[in-house]
Every structure is written in structure tokens, then in C-alpha cells.
């Protein structure tokens, strides 16, 4: 079996997080996150997750609604892949790997790396939740003295036509 590739992990992560690949790579943590998922779940599970994602893409053939359905069907409602995919989302947004539920570890195996942990010291400040809410991570990525008096700089794509 070939090792799960970073490109496949990024393709999955783009769809799970709704952040473009440039931003995901821009955290500098994509490689470390993939390593964490592999260590916590094992390569067989990770490979199956990537394959399910690719199958969902193929099935939808470019139709966004169809892709949403296929992703829910093939990934999120699957007992094995669903919890892992949700964990990947939390990993990108919060920078923390959360322990998988006991039902998952009972059925698919417990690994020491599956415990709740912060991946690196940088993962808190690189969490996607901060750009998503237009704020800096408290205590890191200083935004400049007095900038807190300004409204959050929320990305246009989240405004859905609303004005700031």
C-alpha cells in the first residue's frame, strides 16, 4: 500500500474546510497534520477516507449539490470515516487533534497518538477559526496597536452579499 499523499490530504481538506489550498499550505502545517491523522488512525483508514472523498467527487461530476450529498453519504455517515473527517475539520480549525469517540476506538482500534493533543506550538495560532471570524488568535499574530477598535475584517466570501 502506498502512503497517503499530501496532495490527496489537501484536496480532501479543501472540501472539508472551505479554505483554498494556498491558505491551507500557508499554515505551514499541512504535512504535520497529515502525519498526525496517519498516526492516530492508521494508513488503512486514511487511505479509505481519501478514496471515499475522490469517489464522492467523481460521483458528483462537478455538481455542488450532488457533491454535498455524496460527501455526506460516502464520508460523514460512515461509522469509520465520518468521525475521522470531523476530526480533520476540527484539526484545521482549532489546531487540536481531539480523541476519537470510544465507539470508534472500540471498533477500529486505539492508538496512543489518537489521544487529544496539540500538534505543534504553532497549530493554535494557525487555526482556521481565526481567519474565519476575522480576528487574530489572542496572544499571537499581533494585529497592531489599536486595531481592536476596528470591526473584524471578515472575508467577503463569508458576507454572502451583506455589507460590512
Amino acid at each position, binding site marked *: 500500500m502506498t502512503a497517503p499523499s499530501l496532495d490527496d490530504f489537501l484536496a480532501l481538506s479543501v472540501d472539508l474546510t472551505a479554505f483554498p489550498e494556498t*491558505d491551507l*499550505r*500557508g499554515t*505551514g502545517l499541512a504535512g504535520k497534520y497529515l502525519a498526525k491523522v496517519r498516526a492516530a488512525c492508521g494508513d488503512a483508514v486514511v487511505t479509505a477516507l481519501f478514496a471515499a472523498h475522490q469517489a464522492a467527487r467523481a460521483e458528483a461530476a462537478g455538481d455542488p449539490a450532488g457533491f454535498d450529498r455524496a460527501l455526506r453519504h460516502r464520508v460523514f455517515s460512515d461509522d469509520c470515516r465520518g468521525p475521522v473527517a470531523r476530526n480533520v475539520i476540527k484539526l484545521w480549525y482549532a489546531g487540536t487533534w481531539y480523541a476519537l469517540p470510544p465507539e470508534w476506538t472500540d471498533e477500529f482500534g486505539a492508538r496512543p497518538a489518537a489521544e487529544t493533543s496539540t500538534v505543534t*506550538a*504553532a497549530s493554535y495560532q494557525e487555526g482556521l477559526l481565526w481567519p474565519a471570524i476575522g480576528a487574530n488568535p489572542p496572544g499571537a499574530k*499581533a494585529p497592531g*496597536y489599536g486595531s481592536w477598535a*476596528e470591526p473584524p475584517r471578515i472575508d467577503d466570501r463569508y458576507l454572502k452579499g451583506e455589507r460590512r
Partner: protein
Amino acid sequence: MIDATINSREELISYLDAALALEHATIPVYLTAYYSIHPTTNSDAAHIIRVTAVEEMLHLTLVANVLNAIGGSPSLIRPGFVPSYPTYLPDGENDFTVDLRPFSPEAVETFCKIERPRKAPEGDSRLVSTGASEPLLAASPTAEGFRFYSIGEFYEEIIEGLGRLAAEDPKLFCGDDSRQVGPEYFYSGGGDVIQVHDLASACRALSLIAEQGEGLDAGVYDSGGELAHYYRFRQLQFGRYYQKGDKGDAPSGPELDIDWDEVFKVKVSAKMSDYPAGSELAAAAADFNTEYGTFLALLTRSFNGEPDRLVEAIWYMFRLRDGFNRLMRNPLPGSDGLNAAPTFEITVPDEVVL
């Protein structure tokens, strides 16, 4: 013997405009190296480069204050203000260009050349023939085909010219005081913003620039007791800190911890043409350049009667930092495994909404 090259207010302004471009041109060079360092590694080197870059921003502000004091209008958005890297800087030998490089021995060598102490022994050898029509950052704006040995020489020429013109023209310092940037905007570096109203304050401002760069009278420290930029960078070459009493060629302080491998290997002086056309990454690089152009426009307004806007400009700098980091962590396709980096190919939008 070259005659004095500054004989009128217009000539003085053209020198100070060149000084503004010169101070700015060093900043992308230092920041590219600084942001290429992996987070939480190389803290000695990162600190040295960061403080130097921040002091270049102080120098830019000091030049703007001198320009405003004599009735000039500092512009950071005129065509050609941001050089196309690699570009020449004055060094006396016409043998090196300045690239946008990741942190590396080559980058540090360039830093030392940029900041190197003046060496012209006599006033008349301050200007040297360029021997070519290459783009130069500290070329004499008024004596065609000549440039300076070092940045210190360049400022020496300006200080002499200022003194001469001030003696001839009691109204030389006719600028509006409300255009001066005050010390409250500068933090996180050595030195202070000096407001310029007369010859004495103008000379203090320009001497601070020269001293912070290369040291005072060939000493390792400047008059504020701060290590000059040239010697700070020499520490990275020696792998050892200076301490008080040291001579330039023999630092005797603690060792520095440097790991040249803990660096994002970014493409040297990357251009937009290196990015795959139409790619997401190319759009991110173009966004950085647009943001930077808008930032320069904001600085220009700050230096033209709205000094309060510097607060906003500083917020911009922090966002540009995030833009730097994002690009440098992305591989640049087709570049043999090198990463992307800002290109600093800046076009200022015609109508900048600030």
C-alpha cells in the same frame, strides 16, 4: 574632484527622494530573509534581522520628515520607487546586486554589503564613476554617471548640502510643522523619530540614519550605544555576539545559534512570471502586491499632512506579514522544490480607496 552636487532646494529634494527610495529598497530584502525563517527557530538571527528592518522603517520616516521640513512632498507611489529585484546598491565596487533571498549565508553577505561602513578617505572621492548606465539606488540624482561609495557617504553629501543651502537661504526650512511625524508612532526598534524644524534637527535625523547603519566614526556601536547594523550582521557571519570594547573583526560575546536549514527555501527574487498563470497561488501573490501598493499609498498620505494615518499603516504591516507567511509556505510549481515569495512588482492602483 567632483563639485558639490547639491546646490539648490530642487537638487536637495531629488537627493532626499532618492534617500527615501534607498531606505525603502532595503526593507523587502530584510523581510524576505526574516519571514523565510521557520517559526520558533533561529531566534538570534530572526531578532537581528527584524530589528534592523524596523529601523529601516524609522529611517524612511526620518527622511520623510527632512523632506517635509524643506517643503518637499514625500512620495512612495511614484513610478520606479520600488526597485525591480535584483537591483544595485552603492558599494564602491559596482560588483554586487541585491536580491530577495531566503535567510542564508549569501543573504547575510548582501546585508553586510548594504550596511558597510564608508571607506572614502577624502571628501573628493565620495563620488565614484559608475562606469555604466545600470540602475543604482544611491546614484547621485544630480551628477549623472556618479554614485556613492556607501550609504554613509550618500548621507554625508546630503548633510553638507543642507548646511550650505541653509547658510544661503534662511527660509530653507519652510515646511508645515503639522506634516512632521512624531515619536509616538515608532516602537519595537532602536532610535526615535526626530521631528525636523531646522538645520540642527535635520542633521540629527540624517546622522542617526548613517550611524545606525554603519556605526559612529568607524566604531562598532552608535552614539546611542546601539550596535550598528553592519556589525549586527557580522555577528551572523562570525557566529558570535559583540560586547562592549570589542573591535570589529573580533567579537567576544556569547555564541549565536544558527541553523541555516530551518528556513523556507524560497525562489530568489521571484517574479509574477514564475507563478503558474491563472493559478490560485498566482492570485495570492498578485493580492500581496496590490495590498503592498495600497500600503505605500497610505504611507504617502501619512507623510503628506495626515500623520495619524500611520496607525492604520502599521495595521497594514501586520497583515502584510500574514501575506508573506502564507506565500512562503507554498511550493512554487516548476521551481525545483523551491517555495513562493512576494515579488514586490508593485503597481499602485490609480484610485486607491483608503
